[in-house]
């Protein structure tokens, strides 16, 4: 009973280690699932009002990227793998912008290039994505997010081939699409997106040759941060923005975010191990302590055993075996219960929605093996200290010991 209570410390240590590690992993899965499909070598550019006067322009000038920039970058910057310009039309917060018969809805309208799906992947649930021919012929087609299909169409209707009136112009629906990532550029739900060809959008809505946004990936082997800096300088030079104006070109670099996330999650894992091992250590010290007490009580017995021929090695073996048995049993229960709890959590989460940032709590096989070896080693250590003490007493003193 007393041993069991002590072994509870070990049980708790392992249990905590498993549960915390699983929870950490779940958080990681939750976040990483949202971004892992995203091209990690991508960077994004938009414009902000200038913050410095330059070449006759005042500060605070509003400016835009142009179609020329697209061609120029494609021709001159070899480090660029994919370049996808983007236009932002009316968004979901600007009131109803989409009409179909009696149904209306407000969605995020963007003009896109096919390359965009190589950076932020979407998969068509029905139909297809936007392609080069759409761009070339400035077709009035659109692909819609799942939520748009829900709002604008009946359940039994097939949206493909149907028409939506978007901001006063009719577009044919050619695809219903599902976002693979949770990375988002305008803060609204991605499933509420309507995407139309970039060139169609420029022309249909009289946007001239304005480009709102660039998404860029670097070729393999080139850090995207390097490309980001290069493109920024280039864009500033082409638009007469002061080279030392840090504000005018807004940019965002997934690589940096990715590294940040990974740092965060390895931090969480390290913390888990520190706390878990700490708790486990407390448990092991408890076991070691109780072994000391047990041995103290059994001093006489050990004395007898040695008088009739038990070698110190045998005595140590016995005690260590007992301690390892105690820790491993306790640890095993902790391990099983911990994994059981994670499985339960997993089942509960499975039925939850997509928006949860907590997915698939699990521990790796390596982690379990690591935990078990930590257990065995700590059991040995917990037994070894009292065992050495037990044999350091001369057999004759042990025999004389009257017990406690």
């Amino acid at each position, binding site marked *: 009973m007393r041993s069991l209570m002590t072994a509870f410390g070990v049980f708790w240590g392992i249990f905590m280690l498993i549960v915390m590690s699983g929870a950490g992993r779940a958080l990681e899965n939750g976040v990483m699932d949202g971004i892992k499909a995203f091209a990690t070598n991508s960077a994004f550019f938009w414009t902000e009002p200038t913050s410095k006067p330059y070449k006759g322009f005042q500060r605070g000038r509003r400016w835009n990227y142009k179609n020329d920039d697209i061609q120029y970058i494609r021709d001159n910057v070899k480090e660029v793998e994919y370049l996808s310009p983007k236009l932002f039309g009316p968004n979901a917060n600007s009131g109803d912008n989409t009409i179909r018969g009696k149904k209306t809805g407000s969605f995020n309208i963007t003009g896109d290039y096919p390359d965009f799906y190589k950076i932020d992947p979407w998969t068509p649930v029905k139909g297809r994505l936007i392609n080069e021919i759409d761009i070339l012929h400035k077709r009035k087609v659109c692909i819609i997010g799942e939520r748009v299909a829900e709002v604008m169409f009946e359940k039994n209707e097939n949206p493909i081939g149907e028409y939506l009136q978007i901001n006063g112009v009719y577009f044919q629906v050619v695809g219903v699409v599902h976002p693979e990532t949770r990375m988002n550029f305008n803060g609204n739900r991605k499933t509420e997106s309507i995407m139309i060809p970039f060139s169609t959008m420029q022309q249909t809505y009289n946007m001239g040759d304005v480009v709102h946004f660039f998404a860029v990936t670097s070729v393999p082997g080139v850090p995207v941060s390097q490309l980001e800096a290069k493109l920024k300088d280039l864009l500033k030079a082409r638009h007469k923005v002061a080279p030392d104006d840090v504000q005018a070109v807004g940019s965002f670099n997934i690589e940096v975010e990715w590294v940040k996330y990974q740092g965060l999650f390895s931090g969480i894992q390290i913390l888990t191990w520190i706390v878990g091992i700490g708790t486990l250590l407390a448990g092991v010290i408890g076991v070691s302590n109780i072994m000391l007490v047990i041995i103290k009580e059994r001093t*006489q017995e050990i004395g*007898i055993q040695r*008088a*009739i*021929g038990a070698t*110190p090695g045998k005595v140590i073996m016995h005690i260590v075996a007992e301690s390892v048995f105690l820790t491993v049993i306790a640890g095993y229960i902790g391990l099983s219960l911990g994994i059981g709890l994670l499985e339960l959590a997993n089942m509960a989460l499975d039925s939850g929605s997509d928006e949860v940032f907590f997915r698939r709590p699990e521990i790796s096989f390596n982690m379990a093996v690591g935990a078990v070896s930590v257990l065995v080693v700590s059991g040995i250590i917990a037994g070894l200290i009292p065992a050495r003490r037990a044999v350091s007493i*001369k057999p*004759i003193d042990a*025999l004389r010991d009257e017990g406690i």
Partner: protein
Amino acid sequence: MISLSNIHKSYAMGNNSLHVLKGINLQIEQGEFVSIMGSSGSGKSTLLNILGILDNYDEGTYHLNGKLVKNMSEKQAAKLRNELLGFVFQSFNLISFKNAMENVALPLYYQGVSRKKRNKIALEYLDKMGLLQWANHLPNEMSGGQKQRVAIARSMISKPKIIFADEPTGALDSATSFEVMDILREINQDGITLIIVTHEHDIAAMTQKIIRLSDGRISEIIQNGELKNWKSQYRRELEIA
């Protein structure tokens, strides 16, 4: 068999050291039945412990079976004890959670004998002690005499050359004491050297040789033939006292 020359032993008691054995010279031959007597504090238990390699000594030499016993590692000592020596204690020192058979079989376990074999041998020895039907009983279910017989069986199972008994009858009433002594005498007749420590004269009188210790020295060795004289002398001492 046993040869001691000029054995000294002292215990450190805080700052003082207590000189317990002050030069013991002793020869014990194979097959002897020896008792060591002496008042308490005379060093008889210490002597027995040294003989049994349970304790070490400071000075002198101790040859056991022709082999010098000095500064032995615990492992060597344990091996020697296991092969050559058997022990019987005043308080029986049986292991309380093991039954009689397992207690008897224990020394064989340390020799690496398989469980089946050692239990079979243990039953044979229990049978010799007349305890066969008690084989599956725990020590606390047995009387003192029975427990001591189990302990004797245990000391014999490894077929030792010498059995040491520290006050084997100390915790027993006189009738059982005589029973136990009879058993010990039988063992001795099989050729095993027996050395017992006792402070009871009538127990000592059953042995062939009495070594009297006083104040860390051997004061008297009484051989078998002189026992009768010694007995009467002892009676006179009692009357005076």
